[in-house]
């Protein structure tokens, strides 16, 4: 019985992989529009600071370092994918772990930055600028957090020898998602930080 089930699974695997990949690209395309609308909203309200602080409280050197960390996590992710394609589970695991670590450092930096801004008097309800800023960067941070969880799931699967069990998420799809959070940050870093100083 089980010997008959295996070929069916293999056949399914080959059939649905391009469909899942296409679905991921559709999802990422729709996410571009999601973040695009939030960036447009931020641009509209960037000068609506009311009595609260504005972009003068930004710490550009600190955010630049965070941006560099996230950018380099794209390198470690693509190296993980490269090792995955070569069926080198150990190297894949190392780069997946490095990517999750860099993502966690970025998140820690964002939490520190938010705490500093709240201390300076910029909260979600201080002004339209504050609302737009926290909604945009907060949603991006939430996407990074989800990405870190997916990376850790991949890391766990690699420990368990199930990295190539291709019925659910795989390294390629997680990689596409991770690179996406990086490219969104490339735009946010320019629009929210660099263009405001």
């Amino acid at each position, binding site marked *: 019985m089980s010997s008959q089930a295996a070929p069916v699974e293999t056949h399914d695997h080959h059939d649905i992989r391009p469909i899942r990949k296409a679905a991921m690209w559709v999802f990422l395309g729709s996410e571009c529009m999601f973040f695009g609308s939030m960036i447009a909203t931020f641009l509209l309200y960037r000068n609506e600071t009311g009595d609260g602080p504005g972009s003068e409280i930004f710490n550009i050197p600190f955010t630049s370092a965070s941006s560099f960390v996230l950018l380099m996590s794209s390198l470690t992710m693509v190296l993980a994918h490269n090792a995955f394609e070569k069926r080198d589970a150990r190297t894949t695991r190392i780069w997946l772990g490095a990517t999750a670590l860099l993502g966690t450092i970025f998140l820690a930096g964002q939490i520190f930055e938010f705490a500093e801004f709240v201390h300076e008097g910029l909260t979600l309800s201080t002004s339209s600028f504050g609302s737009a800023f926290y909604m945009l960067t907060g949603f991006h941070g939430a996407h990074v957090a989800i990405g870190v969880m997916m990376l850790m799931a991949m890391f766990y699967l690699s420990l368990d020898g199930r990295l190539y069990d291709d019925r659910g998420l795989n390294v390629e799809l997680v990689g596409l998602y991770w690179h996406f959070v990086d490219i969104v940050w490339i735009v946010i870093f*320019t629009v929210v930080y660099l263009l405001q100083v």
Partner: protein
Amino acid sequence: MAEAAAHRSHPTPAMYWGIALFLGVVTAIEIAVPSISALDPIKVPLLWMLAAVKFFTVVGFFMHLRYEKRLYKTLFLFGVFGVFPLFIVVLLSMDAL
């Protein structure tokens, strides 16, 4: 042609390191631009251009879109370029245009 693109070989790990170095250099230029007063007249388009270079480098090489089937490219780029009419709709709905 799309099939040929799909079968084009992906970069090697050494090339990925080189691309990361390039991205790091572009980021350093981005960070320097606001502090160079001589660049003030072109600061905004320059920063947008540098961001676009980084964006499409990551999409093309790290996400492998330049090696993918035309269907995947179309699906993603529809979302990317769909942002521009969305910008106009948002700005119009808030009387900002």
